[in-house]
């Protein structure tokens, strides 16, 4: 948490129109290295739209994004991934029929050259997967286990592991605990905490106050597409944040 340094990711004056509908109006957001920002808001407040702008899925109608102080224009999710901006989707986007390791490296598999043909390097996939899972303290029986054999919490952990396998600097998580059993929520929140320790900036969208107050350092509320309120966790309370979601200060 180094609020004095420059933010890792900063959005300034983001505005997004869909036809005549204004989804976002002049929204600002910033997250620092090793910091977790919670984004709260009621349904339709603009949380998902804002995240899609950050991940390059939507182009903002106005406003700009700065990554490590440099202005960036994102044309596609590939661009944001190349910057080190990763998204963990609510539906997880994992292939259940493939093992954990192959999911983590899907689309970016390490290969070895055998003469003039390139073959997948399964040993390397396994090695890198085990090292990465160890680093994040994720426990699974084996990297060869298929994702469909995992519990919801383990799947969420694999999705988070995937988002951080390529030196991600900012990870955006959409409702990371929504689909989990209560005892699994804790593990995922621990995981977010260990991510922060490695210097990753984390943005968590959630409507669960427990999540926000366990892992976040700062919380901001969107209301009807605008910045409504923002405070560091130590200066606010659950009741106040719940009030923000309803549009009361």
């Amino acid at each position, binding site marked *: 948490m180094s609020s004095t340094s420059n933010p890792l990711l900063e959005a300034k004056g983001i505005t997004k129109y869909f036809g005549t509908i204004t989804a976002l109006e002049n929204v600002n957001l910033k997250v620092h290295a090793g910091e977790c920002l919670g984004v709260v808001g009621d349904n339709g407040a603009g949380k998902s739209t804002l995240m899609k702008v950050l991940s390059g899925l939507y182009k903002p109608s106005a406003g700009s994004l700065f990554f490590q102080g440099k202005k960036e224009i994102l044309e596609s*999710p590939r661009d944001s991934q190349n910057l080190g901006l990763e998204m963990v989707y609510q539906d997880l986007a994992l*292939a259940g029929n493939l093992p954990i390791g192959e999911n983590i490296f899907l689309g*970016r598999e390490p290969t070895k050259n055998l003469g003039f043909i*390139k073959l997948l390097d399964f040993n390397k996939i396994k090695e890198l997967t085990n090292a990465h899972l160890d680093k994040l303290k994720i426990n699974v029986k084996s990297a060869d286990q298929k994702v469909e054999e995992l519990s919801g919490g383990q799947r969420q952990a694999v999705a988070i592991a995937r988002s951080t396998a390529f030196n991600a600097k900012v990870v955006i998580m959409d409702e990371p605990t929504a689909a989990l059993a209560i005892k699994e929520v804790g593990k995922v929140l621990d995981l977010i905490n260990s991510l922060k320790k490695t210097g990753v900036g984390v943005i968590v969208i959630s409507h669960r106050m427990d999540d926000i107050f366990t892992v976040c350092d700062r919380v901001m509320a969107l209301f009807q597409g605008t910045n409504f309120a923002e405070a560091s966790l130590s200066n606010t309370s659950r009741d106040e944040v719940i009030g923000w979601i309803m549009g009361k200060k």
Partner: protein
Amino acid sequence: MEDKDKKIVSLHLKLMPYLEKYGILLLLVIMILVMHILQPDVFLSWRNVTNVFKQISWQSMLALGVFMVIVTAGIDLSVGSIMMLSLMILAVVAKAGAPWYIVVITPLIAGFLCGLFNGLGITLLRMPHPFIMTLGTLYIFRGTGNLISGGTPISGFTDEVRYLGHGRIDLQWLGLEKSQYLPVSLVLIAIVYIIFWIFLNHSKTGKWIYAIGGNPNAARASGINVNKILVIVYSLCGFLSGIGALILAGRTDSGYPNAGLQSELDAIAACIIGGASFFGGRGTVLGVFAGVMIMGILRNGLNLMDVSSFWQQVLIGSIIVLAVYIDVLRRDLGTRK
């Protein structure tokens, strides 16, 4: 009593991965044993075994192509028609007096282009399901084949053209008799299956084919160009159907209008018996081979026993249902809901 039950359950769980991988081979071995017991003199004779391989040679190509498509959760109903069209083009080109190396290449190119047409249609025209596109091309390709050949058989190819389907590798140098030869088509099946096994299991593209079948959204989110992979898969499926046409040309020495009629259904059946899932992402090359073999042995064995072909239909249908039911039971035990 309870302990005993627990032991049985844990034994099941331990065996499950092996059954999943090799269960279909077990079924194949059992079938071979049963046929051997029923027909001890004939069934495992050199002549009959090579006969089975010659009979399944072109079906095994169609099945392998359809298998790749099924792994992506798609379907290709047009492989029989692709094979017929490729065969007819081969026949026309051969009759026009083209040299053998041109004649041999034409069905491969024709098959590939037919598959490409399917793939582009499914992706560019955004067909709601590959079933629709390939149902359309099932008619289009067969109709085209009849248009270019006038709907009549064209027979008589040179030995070079017939080599893959009809050639024999002499094994007399091993001290075997002249009748104990190796069909070239058997060697071809082995080579093609090994190449595609490596492609599907050890290349990036192969892995992505499985990923698309498992969850196309995950593949997209990983930056995989799903449409491009689908076009490749359907093109390869067409290419394999073209190889099938070349083999069939060798076996029958003729291009004929009914070639490959309903063979798309045989190909799908072999994949399903071999453990491929219609929902995509599941199945192995070895399983498809076993599926093709099971269908071939069943037909061959029942022919040897003079069982009517009507019973063969009933039996093959029953095996499809049974094989999938076993798969359902296995899945219930193996996967979390």
